[in-house]
Structure formats: C-alpha cells, structure tokens
C-alpha cells in the first residue's frame, strides 16, 4: 500500500482507538435515532395541520415547516445550546440539545414527506372507505395511513441519513460522539488524516446500512401489495 500512497497511513493509531470510536459511533447513531423519532412523531400532526381547512392550524404549521427547513442545523444547535442558556431560558445537556435540534429540523422535512405521501393515496380510497361505512377517523387509520406510510419510507430514510450526517455536527457542542473522539485523537496524536479517514468510513458504513434497512422495511410494509 505504501508504494501506492505518497504518504504513510498509520493504521495502528486507528486500531488503538477503535473501541472509543465505535462507542462514539453508537452515541452518534443513538442521538440521530432519537432525533429522527422526534421528527417522525412531530411530522404527522404537522402535515395534517398543514392540510387543515382552518387557518388557525394551517398557518402555524406552515410557518413551523418553513422555519425548520430554512434555518441551518448548525444555527439551531448553537441557538438551543448556547443562546437559550445564556438568556436563561433553559439549559440543556449536549445530548438533549442535539436530539432536539435534529428532531426540530427533521420535523419540517418529515411533515413534507407525510404530506406528499398522503396526497399520493388515490381519492378513490377515501370514497370507498366512506362507502363501506367507515368513519373519517377509521378510514384514516385503517385505510389511508398504512398506504401513505409505505410511500413515505424511502424519503423518510433519506431524512434519517441526513440527520445522521448532521449528528456529526454535534461534536461542536461537545457531545462525545464518534466524530468528537476522532477530532480529539487527531489533535492529540497529530494524525488527522488517519482519524478523519476512519470517521468518513464509519459514517459511510452506517449510511449504507441505513439504506439497506430502508429497502428491507419497504418490502415488509409492501406485503399487502403484489406487483
């Protein structure tokens, strides 16, 4: 390998700290998963409120979505972690601040995904559900939502991957995740190339796994549909 590369790649510094890196990676995935769960939970009512006929629900929901999609994640992180604490509003741990910022940013994206998935369900489904005597709530829960969720999975997984990549930013507020460890070791051992390469490989690996899981989940939820 050293004949190919114009410089030496010191594997030992990576293997020496592999335990810490992997533990950090677990934390990265954990905070991203918590943020995604929050986004997925917030997104559905947001999407429904955005489709509502009363402006009392629609306007705030639209503004929330615009805010969540328009403000960069890094600013949300700084705002929740430094600005709010400085102003004495609340003071959060790095994990909670990270989870909240990922969740709030993701909620705008998830709301858009739910909205387009709901509008992709053919109107005939509503009509036939009404024709067989289901109430509006029943029709939504048993007929519309399962079909919408299936179309929502691939883009939702993209959002998860986006949040996972955004989670690497949480090292700036001192969340001791994988990238924080990589930065720390890179500085201490002065091996930035090795550590950042390892970090990149880990991030790519996790996103690939997420893509595979998405395909699996999509097949599971498409059981009812034969193509």
């Amino acid at each position: 390998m050293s004949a190919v590369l114009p410089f030496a790649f010191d594997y030992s510094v990576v293997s020496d700290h592999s335990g810490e890196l992997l533990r950090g990676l677990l934390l990265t995935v954990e905070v991203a998963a918590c943020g995604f769960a929050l986004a997925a939970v917030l997104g559905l009512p947001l999407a429904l409120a955005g489709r509502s006929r009363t402006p009392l629900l629609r306007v705030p929901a639209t503004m929330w979505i615009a805010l969540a999609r328009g403000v960069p994640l890094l600013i949300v992180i700084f705002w929740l972690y430094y600005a709010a604490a400085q102003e004495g509003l609340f003071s959060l741990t790095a994990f909670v601040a990270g989870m909240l910022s990922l969740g709030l940013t993701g909620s705008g994206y998830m709301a858009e995904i739910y909205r387009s998935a709901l509008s992709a369900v053919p109107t005939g489904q509503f009509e036939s559900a009404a024709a067989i005597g289901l109430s509006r709530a029943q029709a939504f829960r048993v007929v519309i939502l399962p079909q919408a969720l299936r179309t929502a999975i691939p883009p939702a997984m993209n959002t998860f991957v986006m949040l996972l990549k955004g989670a690497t930013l949480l090292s700036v507020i001192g969340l001791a995740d994988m990238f924080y460890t990589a930065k720390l070791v890179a500085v201490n051992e002065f091996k930035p190339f090795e550590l950042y390469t390892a970090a990149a490989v880990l991030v790519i690996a996790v996103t690939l796994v997420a893509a595979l899981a998405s395909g699996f989940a999509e097949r599971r939820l498409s059981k009812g549909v034969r193509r």
Partner: protein
Amino acid sequence: MTTLYAALDFGPVWEMRSELLKGIGNMALIAVVSFALAIVGGLLLAGMRQSRSRPISWAGFLLIQFLRGIALYVLLLWMFFGLAAAGGFQFQPVPAGILALSLLNSAYLAEIFRAGYEAVPPGQKEAAMACGLPKRTWFFRIHLPQVTQITLPAMGNVFVDIIKDTSILSAIGVTELLRESQRWAQFYQLPFEFYTAAAVIYLAIVTLVTFGWRRLERRAGRHLETNATVRRSRSLLFGIGARSETATAP
C-alpha cells in the same frame, strides 16, 4: 418576563451590520460557485452512470454512493486538516469549502438528472425521429427543455441545501455569515441576539431563493400553461377550465 425583554439587546447586531453583510456576500459567492460546479459534476457523474461501458458505469455508481454517504463536516475536516497533515497539501478555506460542497451535491444532482432524463416519455423521441428531426435538434429543442422542467424543483432543493450548508464552512474558518455571528456573539457576549439574527437572515434568504426559483420553474414550464383566454372560454364551456393547470402537470 420583563427581565427577559430588558436583557435582549439587538443594538450590537445592527452596529455590526457591515460585517454580517460581508458574511452574507461570502456565503452567496460560495453557494453560487458551488452550485455551478455541482451542476457540472452532476452532469459528469450522470453521464458516467449512463455510459455503455460497464466499468465506467460502475465507477459512477460507486462515486455517487460514496459521496452521498459522507457527511459534509467530516469531508471538510478530512480535506482541510487530514490532507494537509498527510500529504503536505494545504487548501485555503474557501476553495476547500467550495470543493467539498460541490463534490457532495454533485452526487445528489447526478441522481436528479438521471431520474429527469428517464422521466421524459419515450414517445417524445420517437415522434421527433418520425418527424425527421436530426438527433441534435431532438436533444436541444425537445428533450432538454422537458428534462429541465422536470428537474428544476429538485435542483432548487439542492441549491437551498447548499446555501444552508455554507454555515458548516465556519468550522474551517471561512468568514461567512455564521462565522461572523459567532465572532461577534463572543465579542459582545450576546449569543442569543446574534444567533437569532443569523437564523432570521438565513430564513429570509432561503425564502427569497425559494420564491425566485418558483418563478424559474414556472418559466421553464410555461409551454404547459394554458393561455388565459383559452382557459376562460373553456371554463365557460365545460366548467373545467379551473382544473386545467393541475390536469396538465406531469
């Protein structure tokens, strides 16, 4: 609550407006250059993917997967600190940021271009050939306008993402909006005011760009719009004219 309002002091934000404006200028420059380069890169990657040669197509696939999987922050530090330490190759902050942004987003654009290219119905090409149009005319006058019209909304999303992601370049010392806000937030000890101002500015820019992009989309899709007179007469005749726009949208 009164203490909260008394504590808020946006005066320094206004005083530092020229610095923040400089940051906005840098952000705009970086975003536009990165977007232009990403379009070029995206076309290249999409071309590789479409290639008839197996190895080239596979290389394109791998490159796209690789670039879509990596986080911008990781790539930035890898390029800026990692490459410098390993190969003695030191980027300047702005070129490093532009390169990282355009590399990552070219992968997204490549997928968008490919999907748009395939979304044009094949009948369009057959009809053009049947009319005896030369291949070049088909591509530039028939195919490309339709591909543009299909891909523009997704391209707008990528552009907005690039604008938002320029904030991450503050990590390697690019003096864009967030970096300036951070600097003065620390100087004045007013993080709440400066970060709130930065958030508002970003939101305003993103909203403006989104509206501008909508206009562009409408312009690219103007061949699909029904003439106002026709629409009016149709609605008089059949009462369906109001639906014509949704009916013709692809």
